[in-house]
C-alpha cells in the first residue's frame, strides 16, 4: 500500500519532513570530513618535504638562510591573533552580541589582509633576488635548494589561497549575521567558517618551523 501522506500535490514522492528539520550536527560533521581531506592534501606535501629534507639535508639548511624569521614570526602572530578573533566572534554570537561578532570578523579579515601583504613583500623580495623558478640565480642553485624553494612556493602559495577563501567565507558570515540568517540560535555556518579558518592557522603552525626556523 502506498502511503498517501508521502506524496506531494503533484503525486511525487517526498521524503518525510524534508526541508523542515535542520541538522546542525550533520553540517558540522560534514565540515570536519572536508577538513580531513584538507589535512590529507597538505599531508601529501608534508611527506614530499620530509623526503627531500632527508635527501638534501645540507642544501635545505643553506637555502633556508634566505627566509626571514622576523617576517615569518610576524605572520605567525597575525594568524594566531586572527584565530583568536574568529573564536571570540563565535563566543559573541553565543552571547547574542551580533554587532561585536561582526566587528571581530572584520578585524579577522583585516588580519588576513595583513598576512597576505606581508607574504607579498616576502615573495617579491625572493623573486627580486632571482629565487624563483626559471630565473638565472634559481637555475644555478643546487638541486636540493631549488626543491626547497619549489616546496616553499607551492605550500605557502596553497596556504595563501586558503587564507583568501577563508577571508571570503568570513565576509559571507558577516553579511549573513547582518541580514539575520545567521543568529544566536542558528550559527552553524559561522562555526563551520570558523573551523576552516582555524585549520588554515593549524597548517601555518607547521609551515612556520619547517620553512623559517630550521636552518
Amino acid at each position, binding site marked *: 500500500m502506498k502511503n498517501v501522506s508521502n506524496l506531494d500535490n503533484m503525486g511525487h514522492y517526498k521524503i518525510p519532513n524534508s526541508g523542515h528539520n535542520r541538522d546542525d550536527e550533520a553540517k558540522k560533521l560534514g565540515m570536519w570530513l572536508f577538513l580531513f581531506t584538507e589535512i590529507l592534501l597538505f599531508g601529501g606535501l608534508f611527506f614530499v618535504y620530509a623526503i627531500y629534507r632527508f635527501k638534501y639535508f645540507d642544501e635545505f639548511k643553506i637555502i633556508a638562510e634566505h627566509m626571514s624569521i622576523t617576517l615569518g614570526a610576524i605572520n605567525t602572530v597575525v594568524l594566531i*591573533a586572527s584565530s583568536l578573533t574568529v573564536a571570540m566572534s*563565535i563566543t559573541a554570537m553565543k552571547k547574542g552580541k551580533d554587532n561585536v561578532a561582526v566587528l571581530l570578523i572584520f578585524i579577522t579579515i583585516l588580519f588576513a589582509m595583513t598576512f597576505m601583504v606581508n607574504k607579498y613583500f616576502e615573495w617579491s623580495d625572493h623573486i627580486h633576488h632571482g629565487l624563483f623558478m626559471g630565473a638565472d640565480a634559481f637555475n644555478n642553485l643546487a638541486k636540493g635548494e631549488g626543491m626547497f624553494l619549489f616546496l616553499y612556493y607551492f605550500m605557502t602559495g596553497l596556504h595563501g589561497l586558503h587564507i583568501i577563501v577563508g577571508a571570503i567565507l568570513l565576509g559571507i558570515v558577516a553579511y549573513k549575521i547582518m541580514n539575520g540568517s545567521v543568529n544566536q540560535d542558528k550559527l552553524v555556518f559561522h562555526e563551520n567558517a570558523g573551523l576552516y579558518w*582555524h585549520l588554515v592557522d593549524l597548517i601555518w603552525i607547521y609551515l612556520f618551523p619547517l620553512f623559517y626556523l630550521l636552518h
Partner: protein
Amino acid sequence: MSDHSHSPSYKSDLITFGILMVLTALTIWASYATGGTTVLAVSVAMGIASIKATFVVRNFMHIKYDDVIYKIFIGLVILLFASFIVMLAVDYAYR
C-alpha cells in the same frame, strides 16, 4: 548538543591565545638553542607545533565541548597520518 556544561567564554579564548603566543616564542628560541637542523631541532620544532595544534583543535575548534564521535574521528585521522609517516620513514631507511 553537548556544550552546555562548559560554554566557551572570551576569557578562555584569550588564555588559549596567550598559551599559543608563549609556545611561538618558545619554538623560535628553541630553534636557536638547538642549533638549526639537527634531529633534535626538528623533533623539538615539530613537538612544539603539535602542542600548539592540540590547543587550537581543543580550545578554538571546540573539540573539548564536542561529542566523543569527533574525538574518535580526529584520533583516526592522526593515526592514519602517523602510519603514513612511519611507512615513509621505513621505506626511505631500507631503500
